[in-house]
């Protein structure tokens, strides 16, 4: 591993770049939702309030951290960094500035699935460690919801892999030179977006963090720096899942090659990637703005009786077409 690769992992297009994107996504999410609701949204910090998420983050880090008496101190204090690590590691496998990712191996889709599962597991552990009444209920809901959306999510992620005959994201992105997989597997893309809403705890699946029912869900007992990192992680997951959707179904950084000058080519690829990323992100926050929260048993019913059969249907169509 040379110095350049370390810079790539930590700065661009790795961690720092994605954390920056997380802040931008948070701002975009709040701003578009506000405009769709007839409000103005963040306004004061920076031009059009673009620095508001950054300000919120640093404000939270300076606040007092309260550790509940009956909490599991080890998990409560060390959980948030681990929770942050999950999507942060996942982003390394996504090609941004060229058709190849920073780190790539032939099986990194499996690792992505592990990352997605790990992030839910960490959320559950954090909730249980804080030992609050609301957290406990929220974790019950989170786990039930997870058993629901896990299967359709995996099936919908596997579909492009079968189409590309590759288990690496790099391979899948490279295979979409001619056409995007969303045209062959539109149902999978839809299922992926809906499962992503559930993974991100956004409406209509914000059941584990429903604020009018269980205050802040599994995050209720967290405060200060830990809360700042948890919120940042949720936004990073948001970017990560949007990037995954853009890479698997919309071709990611792949697009018509207009130039062969190295720097310009990098810019071209990253702009392809960013446009698709924001398109997927916009789709997610448009859906979450337009819907009401449903109940946990209704969510489970949606996942098991509608999404799982649909994704299986798409999978069999894809296998038959191949």
């Amino acid at each position, binding site marked *: 591993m040379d110095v350049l690769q370390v810079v790539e992992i930590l700065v661009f297009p790795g961690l720092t770049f994605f954390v920056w994107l997380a802040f931008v996504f948070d701002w975009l999410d709040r701003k578009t*939702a506000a405009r*769709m*609701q*007839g*409000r103005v949204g963040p306004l004061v910090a920076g031009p059009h309030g673009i620095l508001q998420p950054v300000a919120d983050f640093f404000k939270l880090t300076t606040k007092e951290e309260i550790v509940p008496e009956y909490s599991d101190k080890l998990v409560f204090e060390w959980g948030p960094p681990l929770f942050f690590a999950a999507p942060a590691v996942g982003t390394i496998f996504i090609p941004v500035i060229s058709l190849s990712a920073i780190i790539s191996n032939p099986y990194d889709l499996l690792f992505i699935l592990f990352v997605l599962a790990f992030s839910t597991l960490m959320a559950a552990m954090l909730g249980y460690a804080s030992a609050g*009444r*609301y957290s406990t*209920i929220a974790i*019950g*809901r989170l786990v039930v919801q997870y058993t629901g959306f896990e299967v359709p999510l995996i099936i919908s992620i596997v579909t492009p892999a079968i189409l590309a005959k590759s288990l690496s994201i790099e391979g899948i992105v490279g295979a979409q030179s001619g056409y995007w997989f969303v045209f062959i597997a539109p149902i999978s893309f839809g299922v992926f977006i809906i499962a992503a809403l559930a993974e991100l705890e956004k*409406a*209509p699946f*914000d*059941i584990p963090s*429903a*604020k*009018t*029912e*269980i*205050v802040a869900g599994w995050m209720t007992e967290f405060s200060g720096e830990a809360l700042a990192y948890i919120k940042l992680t949720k936004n990073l997951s948001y970017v990560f899942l949007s990037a995954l959707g853009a890479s698997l179904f919309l071709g990611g950084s792949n697009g018509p090659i207009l130039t062969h000058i190295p720097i310009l080519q990098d810019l071209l690829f990253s702009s392809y990637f960013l446009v698709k990323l924001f398109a997927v992100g916009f789709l997610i926050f448009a859906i979450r*703005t*337009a*819907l*009401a*929260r*449903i*109940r*946990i*048993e*209704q969510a489970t019913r949606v996942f098991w009786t509608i999404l799982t059969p649909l994704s299986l249907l798409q999978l069999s169509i894809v296998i038959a077409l191949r």
Partner: protein
Amino acid sequence: MSDKEDPQPEGRKEASAGLIQYSPENLVPFGPVHPALKEPEYFKLILEGEKIIEVIPRIGYVHRGIERAAQERTWIKNIYLFERICGICSFAHSLAYVQAVEGILQFEVPRRARYIRVLVAELERIHSHMLWLGLVGYWTGFDTLFMWIWKDREHVLDLVEAITGNRIHKSYSTISGVRRDLPENIADPVKKEMAYIQQRAKYYKDLVSSEETLISRTKGVGRIDADLAKKLCPVGPLLRCTGIARDVRIEDPYAAYDELIPEIKTSTEGDIASLLALRIDEVNESCRLVLEAIEKIPSGPVKLTAPRSVPKGESMFHVEAPRGELFYYVRSPGGIAPERVKIRTPTMANILTATAMLKGHTLADVPVVLTGMDPCFGCMDRVSVFEVDKQKEWSVLGEELRQYGIKYYKERRAG
């Protein structure tokens, strides 16, 4: 019981403990401070998983002793005091009070003043209903609906400000009429905004009856039937949504409701979805009444000169507040201040129904069902202790309360 420090009479504690056995792990506190509640109130939810077995309301968190304070103030000062019982239905409170006092005085209120009272009361009903409709969006996680309806509510509030001088605490009623005439050229903005509200109400009715995520949260949730409603005696929309057409405005017309006749809207399902539809219908109906009032308003004075002191006598008055029947009892000793004012607010009548509606539902339904009655805990918390074992209601006098407090803290210090 988890709350040993609860300052309740022993009889009540035993009686409520006898109602249900539960372990502390099953108790989920809902309030006193909770994102779903606008005002502090504590509900003990006994859960089994997500299912609600029992709801124990514990009222009194925003008790301010207003009825006692009223005895120290003059008749005019009390108007502004009673307005502050509740912000949302402030005009209904002052209206009920001044009409009760007018009853003792046997005043004939000028016809124009009665029309203006209807106008403002209906504007208040529109904004109160829209507040609740928006909050249903909030409670079900549909923040967009919440923001939209509150955005449209601003139009009504601006009208109220133009007419009365304030958005919420209108300070507009006075004994013998209303304090100021309508501003000039108010008819055009009223017509414009009412047309806008009617158009939006049509859209929202369409939306709440077609958006499936919202339907899944409201259809069949918190259902009460007419028989249960007759037993528990709710008032207002909560009663009307079970199909029982009761409305004080029709049954005992006050102000100008004998000339501007509202149509009672009912729905039959008795669940939250039908409450939504019913309240939107009532917003529409109120818009129609406002337009009718502004068309037919007669000219003339808006108030008479009221005397500072009121002769001996007593009077009762009830009005249809946005949340239901609001009841005032006023007794005058013959002087400048009332001897006793008793208020029965709609939330007090509805709270038992709301807790009965909750049983058997899941925790996810609590915010939307509990607040389906449009609770106003500020209204509800009067000094009134209900003893379950003795089956009688008694009000606590100041001295009694003080003695009870001394006794309670002595006992606590001792053991």
